[in-house]
């Protein structure tokens, strides 16, 4: 991909992150009541409240506070957790691998399952398999991911003990162990995206199959799996890739609930704890970090798009 395009995308990403930083900072300012009082708690004395106010820099003008905070963030310091006293950066980096594993495996499942199903449906259009896939996809979009997880847990973890019901195991403990913990949650998370991708892929592939260049390829002797592999897949993937970025954001959101159901100590669990404990510093760090993940993911998707669609590469 050309240099200028990459720079523009990066610039856009930075802009977004800056906006997000403004929003998250503004959120804390919107706290009803005096922030320092709320943070200090009900039993704090006036002196304690003053101390906290000074510590957290609430006595400074707002703009100064913002830039101080931004400065910290840019050096990787997300502050100190109000509830645990630990560095928020440490908390985030401890929790991130679990969430990233979950989201990545979910996307993989969604892509493989969804695009394959959509392609099959388009190639066998009008047949029973097409109708089955379309109906399943329509149903799949309506499924709440955490409910799907509960349903999956039934045969795999509750009625039988084939897979663990909760928890996360890092890859360092072995690939098999890691997979056995992550597979059910990731499948549940990815299913709704798979359904949507299937619909998208089916529409796109149907469109491609009607194009003149498919007929030209057939006139060269291409058919069956060769035709699909060489001509249909790439051309159908182009519109699908464009929506992939949206799905990343949605999966990240969905992972919050899944982590709760599956007992995974990831970013989502961190966020929920922080909310329940009114730990605003951690919440700020969490929101900002999520935005970073999404922006990076979108950049990757853009690069992927450029790789697939030669017209964009110039």
């Amino acid at each position: 991909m050309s240099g200028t395009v990459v720079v523009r995308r990066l610039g856009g990403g930075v802009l977004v992150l800056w906006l997000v930083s403004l929003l998250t900072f503004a959120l804390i300012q919107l706290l009803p009541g005096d922030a320092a009082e709320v943070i200090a708690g009900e039993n704090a004395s006036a002196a304690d409240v003053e101390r906290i106010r000074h510590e957290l820099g609430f006595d400074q003008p707002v703009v100064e506070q913002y830039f101080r905070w931004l400065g910290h963030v840019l050096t990787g310091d997300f502050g100190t957790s109000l509830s645990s006293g630990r560095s928020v950066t440490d908390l985030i980096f401890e929790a991130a691998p679990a969430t990233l594993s979950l989201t990545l495996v979910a996307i993989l499942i969604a892509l493989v399952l969804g695009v394959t199903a959509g392609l099959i449906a388009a190639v066998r259009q009008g047949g029973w398999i097409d109708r089955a896939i379309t109906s399943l996809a329509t149903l799949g979009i309506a499924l709440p991911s955490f409910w799907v997880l509960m349903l999956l847990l039934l045969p795999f973890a509750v009625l039988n003990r084939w897979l663990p019901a909760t928890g996360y195991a890092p890859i360092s403990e072995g690939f098999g162990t890691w997979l056995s913990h992550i597979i059910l949650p990731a499948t549940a998370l990815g299913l709704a995206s798979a359904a949507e991708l299937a619909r998208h892929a089916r529409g796109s592939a149907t469109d491609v199959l009607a194009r003149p260049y498919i007929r030209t390829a057939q006139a060269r002797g291409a058919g069956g799996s060769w035709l699909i592999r060489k001509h249909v897949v790439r051309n159908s993937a182009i519109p699908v890739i464009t929506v992939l970025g949206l799905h990343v954001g949605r999966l990240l959101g969905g992972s919050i609930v899944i982590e709760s159901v599956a007992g995974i100590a990831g970013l989502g669990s961190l966020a929920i704890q922080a909310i329940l404990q009114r730990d605003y510093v951690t919440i700020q760090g969490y929101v900002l970090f999520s935005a970073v993940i999404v922006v990076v993911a979108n950049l990757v998707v853009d690069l992927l798009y450029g790789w697939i669609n030669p017209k964009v590469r110039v």
Partner: protein
Amino acid sequence: MTTVQSGSDPVLAVDRLTIDLAGRTSQPGLVQEVSFSVAQGRSLALIGESGCGKTLTAMAILGLLPPELRVTGGEIRFGGENLLTASRRRLRRIRGGPIGMVFQDPMSSLDPTMTVGDQIGESRRLHLGESRRESRAKARELLDRVGIANAARRVDVYPFEMSGGMQQRVMIAAAIACEPKLVIADEPTTALDVTIQAEILELLRSLQDDMGLSVLLVTHDLGVVADFCDDVVVMYAGHVVEKTAVEPLFAQPQHPYTRALLDSVPQTGRARTMLDVIPGRVPPAGTFPTGCRFQPRCGFAEPDVCDAPQPEFEPVAGHWCRCVRVGTHALDLARVA
């Protein structure tokens, strides 16, 4: 079976081909009882207005009709077999192998995500089992052969990076990649500039001479026919109305439709107050009259005679015409194309 040119066996023989909408055979055929053959080393033009069925006929040869249409009668003989009854696998062997095809709008007829070299070499990989590298090397040669400069670099280029004329050359290169016996070209120059048209036709001619190719050219342009083709089949509303070699067609057209067609071509150097047009319009599919389909617009029509189904007559040796009244009405003398 009819031949335009007696002599060696024809490369392709279309015999009473009939095409209908799938599931509806009671309708008079969209393409009905079309017969002609392409002789070895010669080029045959299928000419007619839009909607006359010439493209459908060409598509039917390689089994590329859209799913709504079905062949309901006839044979298409190529290399000793009937293509209409060939298995799907056999057809795939033939497509891009002994029969190559070139399509109309090259911009949309080439895969935008595949390099030119890969598309040209595709049929070689499929039919000759060549590796990607081997087929790309051959593609380079072919690009050279069809007159594209810088072939070595152009092999890795994408279609959208080329002009229309170059893209069409690429399509031709892909069609001849496996040294076919017959190339079917469906309006190959229609979407191109006039100057490029001539170049493409020139290319086809030189390939024909070099490789002993036979060419089936579908077109609506009489100029192309005159410049390039050896034999002509004129179609109207799904029927073949006249077929012969190119000189007799222009010199002595037998069918009233052909004559009207030739008349309607504006000629330079002849001052006229109005263009000659054929009155009326081509009947839409499904509303074809029984008997002669040109009858409503024909100046020589006679109600009783022309309502009956029209067989093909051969009023002059090698010159066939589907008109009952040929020979009974005064023929205008020699025409100059």
